[in-house]
């Protein structure tokens, strides 16, 4: 394979490893929608959030994680911080697949190898993509499959890739529009759809149960706003704040100027942003699949320009984007890596009989991080009176009575009950 592509993959891997080492902020869904259900299925205990009681989630991604949990168990890794790190690194590594996909799609769009290289370079290094890579969310595999859909040539690959991407994350459907212009791809698109419906039938008792529930809850009843409502132009504000003024201009100006040549990738991505903007509930991660397509459009748009100018623009975009992520708010995410580490540490203590964690339960690492079937509950003074809770993980500064400090890291302290 092309040496330049391998160099980009290596650079992308280094960037993703750095992102993982910096402990990116975590979304509650990362644990409770896609890891904890697999853990509970495998071990008999865990906390199912309401989505799993209502059946609005597919078992595809938890099933995939569950199979990996079995393999990790064979290797002696049972839940906790090690397993969590594995899944984060697994998705960070999987996101490297965006790079060859962007190369192919960029090459296809621009008609030149340079266009492919430049699209792939941005996908390898764009901090937003790097930052989202080590997250156990459906957005990551859906974005990978979607980008490969744009890179694919044959009808079968196009149909299967686009359909799989949408099955994993239904709101990404606008990005799969190209499949409608490829009639030969449609029968192939039905295959993943049928498999998805079959898995729902087996797991939930009705074909497409989770998809119907998801669409009904979010788009028919519009109940997603119960989890937060944002202004209509919030996504544009977030894109602007993440890229910064200079980065935004350098990123979108070439796309706009050469839209005639790059619309095949730029318009579906823009359509996704616009359609998601019509929804009251907004989360930054929902945009993830649009970023590789914008990057491909950018790479193709700057393909005819001089190499030095493009390299300078790429560095400026990445620096501005990194600054926007580093300095900007984390929106729906929480910096609870310290709590996760605390829970994992308590799980390793042979004398642990119960753990109290500060904050709302869905912001914790759940039973997956504790990896022991012990009472695990949100900290409350009334619960601290129960002797079964002999450990408490609290932010630095809280001092529970009757406990003494046993462990401390990243702003969190584990307290152990005095005997």
């Amino acid at each position, binding site marked *: 394979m092309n040496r330049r592509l391998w160099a980009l993959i290596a650079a992308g891997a280094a960037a993703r490893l750095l992102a993982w080492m910096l402990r990116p902020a975590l979304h509650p869904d990362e644990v409770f929608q896609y890891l904890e259900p697999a853990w*509970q299925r495998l071990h008999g205990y865990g*906390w199912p959030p309401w989505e799993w009681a209502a059946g609005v989630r597919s078992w595809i991604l938890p099933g995939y994680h569950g199979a990996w949990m079995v393999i990790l168990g064979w290797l002696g890794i049972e839940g906790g911080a090690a397993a969590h790190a594995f899944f984060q690194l697994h998705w960070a590594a999987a996101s490297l697949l965006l790079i060859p996909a962007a190369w192919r799609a960029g090459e296809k769009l621009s008609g030149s190898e340079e266009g492919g290289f430049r699209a792939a370079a941005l996908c390898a290094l764009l901090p937003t993509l790097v930052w989202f890579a080590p997250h156990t969310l459906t957005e990551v595999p859906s974005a990978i499959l979607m980008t490969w859909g744009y890179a694919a040539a044959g009808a079968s690959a196009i149909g299967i890739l686009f359909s799989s991407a949408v099955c994993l994350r239904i709101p990404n459907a606008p990005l799969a529009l190209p499949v409608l212009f490829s009639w030969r791809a449609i029968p192939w698109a039905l295959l993943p759809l049928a498999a998805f419906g079959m898995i729902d039938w087996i797991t939930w008792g009705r074909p497409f149960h989770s998809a119907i529930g998801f669409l009904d809850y979010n788009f028919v009843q519009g109940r997603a706003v119960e989890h937060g409502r944002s202004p209509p132009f919030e996504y544009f504000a977030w894109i602007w704040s993440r890229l910064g003024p200079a980065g935004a201009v350098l990123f979108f100006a070439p796309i706009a100027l050469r839209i005639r040549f790059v619309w095949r990738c730029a318009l579906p991505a823009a359509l996704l942003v616009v359609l998601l903007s019509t929804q009251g509930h907004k989360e930054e991660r929902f945009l993830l699949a649009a970023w590789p397509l914008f990057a491909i459009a950018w790479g193709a748009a700057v393909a005819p320009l001089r190499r030095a100018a493009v390299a300078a623009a790429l560095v400026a975009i990445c620096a501005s984007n990194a600054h926007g992520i580093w300095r900007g708010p984390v929106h729906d995410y929480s910096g609870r890596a310290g709590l996760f580490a605390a829970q994992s540490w308590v799980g390793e203590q042979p004398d642990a*009989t119960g753990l109290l964690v500060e904050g709302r339960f869905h912001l914790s690492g759940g039973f997956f991080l504790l990896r022991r*079937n012990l*009472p695990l509950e949100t900290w409350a003074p009334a619960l601290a009176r*129960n002797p079964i809770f002999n450990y408490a993980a609290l932010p630095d500064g809280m001092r529970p009575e009757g406990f003494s400090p046993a462990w401390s890291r990243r702003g969190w302290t584990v307290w152990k009950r005095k005997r």
Partner: protein
Amino acid sequence: MRVAIVACALIFAGALARFALARPAIEVRFPRQYENPRERHDLARFVHGSTVRVSSAFWALRHHPGYLLSGHATPTAVEKWVSDPRDREPWAEVELREPHDVDEVAFAFEPPAPRRVRIECFEGARRIEAVETAQARQQIRCPGARRVRATFFTQGQLVRLYRFEARGR
């Protein structure tokens, strides 16, 4: 290369099948913190290193089965075990660290209590004693018992149980 890919695919398929077919028991094992005293006491209490198993649990509300053995006299509404709504014949079982003479079994239910409870004591697979009762506290003769199991006849209701005590020496 092809052989390696096929081998990896087979391993993954095997792991997936194992995941799909998993039927884990719900079991909470507590480490021993204190030796059992000589006098009569609650042998099931978690501090003595007992284990609790249940047929199901209402995980959505985090009514953890471990609470059954806490021995806590003033629990909050959270600190109870609740069976799963789909569980037709809920049961809970305490396994003691070593065999003991159990002479009384007591439950602290949140009303409504089950209409009847079948209490059984075992030493290994051998059943020592079995009684059915409508009382929350039941005298029983179980010398050398290792396990005490309670099966709750609820007529479709959930079991809401704060404490499961097995008293004796």
